[in-house]
């Protein structure tokens, strides 16, 4: 496949098609609507399912049905819509069916605006729905990664029977960038649907896709089973990137678009002789905890940058546990942090770290 100029929303929609998504259900919302529009022609063209649902509540439950029937299926939305999906996502988790959700985040709370933000970290990473559940969350920072993560999301969802979220933001959805689409995968044949799926009980006992366990002991046992699965995922599926961390005294911790902006700031800072680098979590759940903890020994300070008022920083603080100072810089409401602003914060962090270091030396 050749590199082409692709808009983020169209790119992930087409990536889903190529990854073998057989059914898409969605509801228009900016800044992800181009994905829904692309699929409204692409899916029927290929004889696959596209339904514009009456709401995001309905969309996620249609996804639930198609997933229960054993096909690759997805929806995409943005904050006001993903909020409506929380009940459904909890049911999907509670019945262990695989599905992919792409959240192209925008400014909030409430109706907020349609400008880029990282407002849904807590909602998606901590589980905005009810009950003890997790979903894998991938955070792309380029259109190429948005494509790759969408394909990966389907594979991970199937492998673990779990909902996998691609957490993008409005700038990534709207941006046009050179990227390469994956080759078209073969669709699962009807006879290849998973053994647990609702396909009609031919020559087997009926299957049940349900999240109800009235007996508390049974529910507890089910939750233990889920936790064991989550532990397995946490051990095997952590993904992260280290950028210019060799010799760094200050590490920026940022994901998605913010990490990309931070890279520009880091290049400028390095030119000024500041020893700074970037730690970028790619999986927000499972979080690269072990790797971040190890980083504590290598740097003097951390700077968390987000397009919100401080959501991921709670995880960083928990993992760092006050062993090095953690500063936070965020722009919110749809405002993006500019590289110059991040650079300014980096200078401050670097000087603070230097001062602390001098104090230690003279003490």
């Amino acid at each position, binding site marked *: 496949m050749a590199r082409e100029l692709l808009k983020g929303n169209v790119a992930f929609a087409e990536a889903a098609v190529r990854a073998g998504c057989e059914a898409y259900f969605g509801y228009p919302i900016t800044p992800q609507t181009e994905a829904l529009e692309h699929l409204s022609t692409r899916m029927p063209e290929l004889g696959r399912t596209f339904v514009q649902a*009456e709401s995001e509540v309905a969309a996620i439950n249609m996804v*639930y049905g198609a997933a229960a029937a054993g096909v690759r299926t997805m929806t995409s939305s943005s904050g006001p819509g993903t909020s409506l999906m929380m009940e459904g996502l909890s049911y999907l988790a509670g019945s262990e069916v695989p599905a992919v959700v792409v959240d192209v985040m925008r400014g909030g709370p409430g109706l907020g605006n349609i400008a880029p933000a990282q407002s849904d970290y807590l909602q998606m990473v901590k589980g905005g729905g009810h009950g003890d559940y997790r979903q894998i969350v991938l955070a792309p920072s380029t259109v190429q990664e948005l494509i790759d993560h969408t394909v990966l999301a389907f594979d991970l969802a199937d492998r673990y029977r779990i909902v996998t979220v691609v957490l993008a933001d409005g700038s990534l959805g709207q941006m046009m960038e050179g990227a390469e689409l994956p080759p078209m995968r073969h669709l699962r044949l009807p006879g290849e649907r998973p053994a647990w799926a609702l396909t009609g009980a031919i020559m087997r006992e009926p299957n049940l896709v349900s999240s109800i366990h009235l007996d508390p002991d049974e529910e507890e046992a089910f939750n233990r089973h889920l936790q064991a699965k989550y532990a397995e995922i946490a051990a095997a599926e952590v993904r992260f990137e280290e950028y210019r961390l060799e010799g760094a005294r200050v590490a920026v911790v940022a994901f998605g678009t913010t990490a990309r902006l931070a890279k520009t700031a880091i290049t400028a800072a390095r030119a000024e002789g500041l020893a700074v680098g970037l730690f970028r979590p790619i999986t927000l759940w499972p979080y690269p905890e072990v790797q971040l903890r190890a980083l504590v020994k290598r740097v003097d300070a951390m700077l968390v940058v987000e397009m919100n008022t401080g959501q991921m920083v709670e995880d960083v603080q928990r993992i760092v546990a006050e062993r090095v100072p953690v500063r936070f810089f965020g722009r919110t409401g749809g405002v993006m942090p500019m590289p110059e602003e991040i650079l300014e914060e980096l200078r401050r962090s670097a000087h603070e770290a230097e001062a602390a270091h001098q104090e230690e030396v003279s003490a």
Partner: protein
Amino acid sequence: MTVVAPEHAMTPVYEFPDSLTSVPTHYCPGCTHGIAHRLIAEVIDELAAKERTIGVASVGCSVFACRYFDVDFGQAPHGRAPAMATGIKRVAPEALVFTYQGDGDLASIGAAEILHAAVRGENITVFFINNAIYGMTGGQMAPTTLVGQKTASSPAGRSLVGQGAPLRVSELLAQVDGAAFVVRRSLHDVVQIRRAKKAIRRAFEVQEQGLGFSMVELLSSCPTNWGLKPDAALDFIRDEMVPAFPLGDFKVPEAETAGAAGAGTADSSAAGADAAGSAVAGRARRG
């Protein structure tokens, strides 16, 4: 479990449907949920459709329908069964897909999902158990609760002012072009039960013919939350519910209305059929 009439020693007159499991139901004595289950299971057997049927249970007393039917089953969030069934049917078009929903589930929290499943002409069958109450949560007011009916959350009786009149869902959905078959039946006596079974069969046939959305509303009892003995509860359906929810065919496929009442298998001669005259001819969809 086979009971044989003594004079025809070898002819079974009653058999347990294959499409039901032997799990004892948790329904209260005198509750007609069990009758509805049995009728649906008998029809699935008659259509030899057990191996290609996929049911979707809702949230209500019938949440465990998934354990009682011996077919593949999903269990949807409260009100969302038509959306879940949509997802299933779209990727398994050869399957016979049905939802089983109470009146709180379908007419209140799930009003949007049922309406739009009909609008899309979704080729699924819906069994709508109208017992004028929220059974599972202990007898609160439903959108179908009768005016003046006392419930746990309308202790003074449902009032037209502030609470409104009962919602007649079948009449509402019959207005929707995508709905191919919408009828109301009752489970309060043997004659009505037999009519209900015919309608259930016809609804499934409409789906098999690809005609679009089909729904059978069944007036059903909740002796427990109505505070009535089982027989009095059946009388309550006949005397109080049927007048508020007239039985009849609100929408049947065009061929059946054109061929006059008796011609189709839809039973338009149901008691209280003042609504039958209002039957709207359905447009055949996705034939």
